[in-house]
């Protein structure tokens, strides 16, 4: 297994990431984690340990890092103030940057980019809204403005479908 001694430093570069250096592996995060409770493939203490040990390749290719429910309980209970959940979001961002993104998350990103919304309206809902006395279409964002913002931070590249996953594209 490839070990990257620079990985801990790489993760520690942000205000969030540098808190990892205070972890003493007590496992309080795993104890309260709902994802760990139902699926032992997701263990926040183990993920932090693997970061500290430099298992970069293993982590960035591990589908299990996406099991976090984003509930932030780990971050609230950590006795060392490690921003566990937020820091593991950073780990996901590194995975996304090399093309490892779950399809449902990628599709959500595409919807946000194309329509300015995660869940756009549809004809059935529009009819139901009108029937209920609500405005037919409540959210009508300026898609061009949102796309300009998202392009500025390099979002389109992150939600591209990679050829090897997309078949004939």
């Amino acid at each position: 297994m490839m070990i990257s001694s620079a990985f801990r430093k790489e993760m520690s570069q942000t205000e969030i990431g540098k808190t990892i250096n205070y972890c003493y592996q007590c496992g309080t995060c795993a104890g309260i984690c709902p994802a760990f409770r139902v699926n032992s493939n997701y263990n926040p203490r183990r993920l932090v340990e693997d970061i500290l040990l430099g298992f970069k390749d293993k982590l960035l290719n591990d589908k299990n890092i996406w099991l976090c429910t984003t509930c932030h309980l780990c971050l609230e209970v950590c006795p060392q103030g490690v921003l566990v959940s937020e820091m593991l979001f950073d780990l996901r961002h590194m995975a996304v940057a090399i093309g490892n993104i779950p399809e449902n998350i990628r599709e959500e990103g595409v919807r946000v980019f194309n329509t300015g919304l995660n869940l756009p309206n549809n004809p059935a809902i529009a009819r139901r809204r009108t029937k209920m006395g609500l405005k037919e279409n409540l959210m009508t964002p300026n898609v061009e403005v949102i796309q300009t913002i998202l392009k500025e931070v390099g979002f389109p590249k992150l939600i591209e479908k990679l050829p090897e996953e997309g078949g004939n594209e």
Partner: protein
Amino acid sequence: MSEYALFVGCVIANRYPHLEKSGRMVLENLRIKFKDIPEFGCCPNPTGTLQISREAWTAAAAHNLCLAEDKGLDILTFCNGCYETLKSANVEMKNDPHHKDVVNKILSKVNMEFKGSINVVHFLEYVYKIITPEKLKETVVKPLTGLRVATFYGCHYGRPSSIVDFDDPIRPVSLDRVVEALGATSVEYLNKHTCCGSAISGIDEDSQLILLKDKLEQIDRVKADLICVICPACYMQLDGNQRKVNSKFGTNYKIPVLYLTELIALAQGIPPAELGLNFHAVKMKELIEKF
């Protein structure tokens, strides 16, 4: 009393408009002044866009904040996800001038600038802190006496507490006090603070449904008449996926799930027929007959 920009969010507006209906009626009843801003876009979702890019999440949130700032309005939202996103972006940029400059450089491409002049409030936070349970009680015409309510806060209402900072992040009380003000009994149950599982629905359905089953099991054990939620994602999971739990685990849960504004609306005497309660996946004939 100030006026608010109402941030309904896409899950309520474009999937569960009946929740919006009760929300608007309750805002009127509570004399909360609000305006719609049609240009509002995706908050964006902390369980979606934030997992792809923190920069994209913050910048798109800042775009919404700027729209409200232009109108001089604080933002009031019905959704935990929108709340965490908009409040995080707002607080983080207000507290960190460097961060604000970085985001403003992005926003300058669309001629916008985040100034830091408004606040973001969740509907429950508003009812609890500004209206107060005592005053809410005065608006009740049909007290929910005898009703056993299991409250569920969801994850993004009180956490991270460094950002939200007004109720306890693990054992919050605001929703329980509000439900009690309506005349109902708030019942305690095990693992109340644990996630409903909604966020991993597209990642691992087995884990998602086990989390939901655990929650329903604990709530059923204390014989709650209904679950009261303050987040449309929790609503989607608890109401919409109860049937899936039953078919997967051979259970027979039929616990009605009401969004807070629906419960307040019933206590304020709004006829159930006006609320679109028929759009709930778990039917609540017995419950409605009480009103």
